[in-house]
């Protein structure tokens, strides 16, 4: 095979004021014709900068110190504006992370494709371009291309928008497509469809790709080779199978060890990377040495370039010979004690229905608005100290349930009781003690911490409100709370923007814990964090759970995390609970058809399971007004029955309950056992 792209010793800095911050440090790699290279690393490691460099694009503040980016032997960095204009969009396509901002909102999507086709001289006339655009839409699996051409971006779903972006990227039949986190903003099931599409396109068109992502699991499905980046350095490059089987660089090993796995038996401990990437304090030598368990004195002094380990496998570590292969193993964490059955549940939700658009107060009574029911007749129980995970795709009503429990969003019907006492529906009507008992942790610590308040103030407020300690002892109590989440006491004098994302989420957890709750509502608290930071927080939650008797409603769309953390799981779709039961039963047949599709959508590390063609068709809209919410999207739908009759709850012996018309034995049969016995990656 011949090389399509050669990046040689690319060193790039960002200018800030009068000084330079180095973002890329001697990055060298190549992409062969028809090959997919995956580039993985934590946020800020420079992977997107590399992706943009392949388009010959640099930010205004970027200074290229040295290096070459050769495309067909032509250096993109010295090509100049006109030459780049000819290449970009024509020979090199780009798929951005966020299709919503990438598409022009005031232009029909068809026209946006035609524009590219005409600009690059593929078509002379609008009519021809329109026909070609329809073909492209068909190619990327958009239903009814003729109609979609005439739509505006906001009339399409996120997945459809991303398909349009992909169509735009392949419009001129490019040699290379650069994909910058193309599925990060999408749902698990949508993500799986997009990946399947990319694999399919690649097989059909033979296009080379650079796939930039923070999700190793995804790369296993699509990449031929994977490059691992750390702080602007490429630390390891290997064929993807080799990389997962025998990572050589300690950072790669840590990254793989950080992934929660769906096949883990209950409660294996993760092996998170220790420490943080501190860009101000990078040593002159190996950038990873401050966090490396195997670092010796020389590591921080001498820079190490990539060295070949085997054919196609290169690593930038001075000690790779001594360290050898270290397949990522894990230590077993203590198994959790089972809760005695039959004990009174802590939280009891019965027949909960929640709607948006409910007119409140006097005006609402006279001018009723159209209601949008988002959660329908939901009942569940959470035991004392138990972790209940609620999973489902976005829009399934997971967060809405948590908001209702907290009292932020009064439901239209149903009761919520805590410890046997029925809670008032609105938070205002609850007693201080009831408010203390339930604490909410949000997804994004950037938004949930007041940026203008010091950590001490943030933690001090709930302490004062709920009378946790005497006035003079506030300082000590805050230090203790920080220690609980493994932060130093001196952090109370810092502002949130002086902390890293993981540290901020710890502060948010500390704020919830300092009130002394019995129930934590954790709303996607890991999804805004990097993989290695995620692993740290998971370990923290586990320790906290065993230290104190606090129950959790853990809302997540990430099944691997759920597997490692939850005691019981509920699967929510369209505001209706479809399946619930102990975690080990959920991940074992029989499955509800929806649960199965969720499990199949989780990216798997094992390359044997790489997708060959398009995946199971999950597309299709659920039928409106049907009695089973999943009807219309279900692969095993029993005709009219699913539309006309509400499905019954069926119970298996081990506490598993499935709401489906298909008999349990039948469900056991359809479940493909291979689907869940593999290693999985983290869903972003």
């Amino acid at each position, binding site marked *: 095979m011949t090389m399509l792209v050669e990046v040689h010793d690319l060193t790039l800095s960002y200018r800030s*004021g009068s000084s330079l911050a180095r973002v890329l440090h001697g990055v060298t790699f190549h992409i062969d014709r028809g090959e997919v290279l995956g580039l993985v690393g934590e946020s800020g490691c420079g992977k997107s900068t590399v992706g943009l460099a392949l388009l010959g694009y640099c930010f205004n503040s970027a200074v290229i110190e040295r290096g070459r980016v050769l495309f067909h032997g032509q250096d993109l960095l010295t090509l100049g504006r006109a030459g780049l204009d000819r290449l970009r969009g024509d020979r090199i396509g780009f798929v951005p992370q966020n299709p919503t901002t990438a598409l022009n909102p005031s232009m029909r999507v068809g026209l946006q494709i035609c524009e590219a086709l005409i600009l690059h001289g593929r078509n002379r006339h609008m009519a021809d371009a329109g026909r070609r655009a329809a073909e492209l839409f068909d190619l990327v699996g958009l239903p009814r291309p003729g109609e979609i051409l005439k739509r505006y971006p906001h009339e399409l779903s996120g997945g459809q928008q991303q398909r349009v972006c992909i169509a735009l990227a392949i419009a001129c039949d490019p040699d290379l497509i650069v994909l910058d986190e193309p599925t990060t903003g999408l749902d698990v099931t949508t993500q799986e469809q997009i990946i399947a599409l990319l694999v399919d396109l690649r097989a059909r068109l033979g296009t080379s790709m650079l796939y930039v992502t923070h999700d190793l699991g995804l790369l296993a499905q699509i990449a031929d080779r994977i490059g691992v980046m750390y702080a602007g350095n490429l630390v390891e490059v290997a064929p993807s199978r080799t990389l997962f089987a025998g990572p050589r660089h300690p950072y790669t090993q840590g990254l793989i060890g950080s992934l929660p796995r769906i096949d883990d038996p209950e409660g294996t401990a993760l092996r998170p990377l220790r420490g943080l990437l501190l860009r101000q304090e990078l040593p002159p030598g190996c950038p990873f040495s401050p966090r490396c368990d195997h670092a010796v004195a020389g590591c921080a002094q001498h820079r190490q370039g990539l060295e070949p380990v085997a054919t196609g496998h290169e690593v930038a570590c001075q000690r790779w010979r001594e360290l050898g292969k270290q397949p990522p193993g894990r230590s077993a964490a203590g198994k959790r004690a089972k809760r005695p059955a039959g004990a009174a549940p802590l939280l009891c939700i019965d027949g909960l229905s929640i709607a948006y658009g409910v007119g409140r107060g006097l005006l609402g009574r006279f001018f009723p608005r159209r209601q949008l029911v988002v959660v329908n007749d939901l009942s569940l129980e959470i035991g004392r100290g138990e972790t209940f995970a609620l999973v489902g795709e976005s829009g399934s009503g997971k967060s809405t349930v948590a908001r209702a429990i907290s009292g932020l969003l009064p439901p239209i019907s149903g009761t919520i009781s805590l410890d046997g006492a029925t809670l008032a529906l609105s938070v205002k009507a*609850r007693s201080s003690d009831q408010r203390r008992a339930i604490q909410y942790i949000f997804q994004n610590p*950037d938004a949930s911490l007041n940026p203008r308040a010091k950590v001490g103030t943030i933690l001090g*407020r709930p302490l004062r409100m709920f009378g946790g300690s005497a006035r003079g002892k506030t300082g000590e109590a805050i230090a203790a709370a920080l220690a609980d989440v493994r932060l130093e006491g001196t952090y109370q004098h810092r502002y949130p923007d002086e902390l890293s994302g993981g540290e901020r989420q710890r502060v948010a957890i500390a704020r919830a814990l300092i009130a002394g709750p019995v129930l934590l509502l954790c709303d996607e608290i890991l999804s805004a964090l990097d993989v290695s930071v995620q692993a740290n927080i998971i370990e923290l939650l586990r320790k906290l759970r065993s230290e104190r008797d606090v129950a959790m409603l853990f809302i997540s769309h990430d099944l691997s995390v759920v597997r490692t953390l939850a005691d019981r799981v509920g699967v929510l779709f369209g505001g209706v609970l479809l399946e619930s039961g102990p975690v080990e039963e959920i991940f074992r047949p029989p499955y509800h058809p929806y649960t199965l599709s969720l499990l199949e959508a989780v990216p798997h590390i094992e390359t044997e399971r790489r997708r060959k063609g398009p995946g199971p068709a999950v597309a299709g809209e659920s039928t409106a007004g049907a009695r089973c919410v999943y009807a219309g999207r279900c692969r095993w739908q029993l005709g009219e029955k699913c539309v006309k009759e509400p499905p019954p709850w069926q119970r298996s012996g081990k506490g598993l309950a499935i709401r489906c018309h298909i008999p349990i034995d039948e469900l056991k049969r359809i479940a493909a056992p291979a689907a869940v016995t593999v290693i999985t990656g983290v869903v972003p």
Partner: protein
Amino acid sequence: MALLDGVANKKGFWSWIARTPLSLRIGALILIVHVVLAATGPFWIPYGFSQMGTGLPLSPASLSHPFGVDQLGRDVFSRVMYGGHIVLLMSLSGTALGLIAGSLVGLWSGYVGGIIDNLVQRFLEVLISIPFLVMALLAMVAAGPELSGDPLLVVFVVAFVYAPRIARMARTAAVEIATRDFVTIARLRGETSWSVVRRELLPNATGVLLVEFALRAGYAPVLIGSLGFLGFGLRPPTPEWGLMISENRSLLLIAPATVLGPGLALASLVVGLNLFTEGLARILGRTVKLGGQQ
């Protein structure tokens, strides 16, 4: 971008100054000159502000009378210099008063929302829809003749004119901040709305409010000057600039310096304040945006 912060570690006053917008630097320079003149003027001016017979009445600009001499034989330059602190103090205190009242009402209204917010906003819109000079005159008339000419009344009028406009800005900011999760957390904790406004909203709205203050303060001298010009401001012989322009306007052709002098003072103050404000808004706009995230 922690990445960039790390490099921009070169602390030091001068390098910081060099990175500020040019408009901020020029504006600050003009303001400093104004403040220094206003603070020291009363001590070194050659004549008293109401001293008559300082020269030949209606004489044009000369070395001994840079801004000429008015009808009553008063030195206009001395009067302008003396009036500086009056204009500055009244502008700033009036705007500050308007800012305090406006921001509290606005933040509270934006946070509480619902019908109350709606009513408050409609009421503010009614106030804003009245041309501000008309409203100022209404307030003056309502205050009655015995208060007319009182500097405090002028300050209150400035505050009264500005408060509804500032309240609207504050409300917009509050509506945005109120959707953030930390406010939700505070609400879940059972905080009172006053406490949320003070602890959560106000600190995060300071950027917007500061810009708003500077912007309004920039036009306050014009407002006070207009009131003075129309005879609704301070009483003669107070050397308020607007009033002086009004008194000397008949001399525009005979001794133009007597009008242009106070006019120049007023214009340079407004220009200085506005340049400064614009620069400040740009700096704050940056830091306010970056406040929450890295």
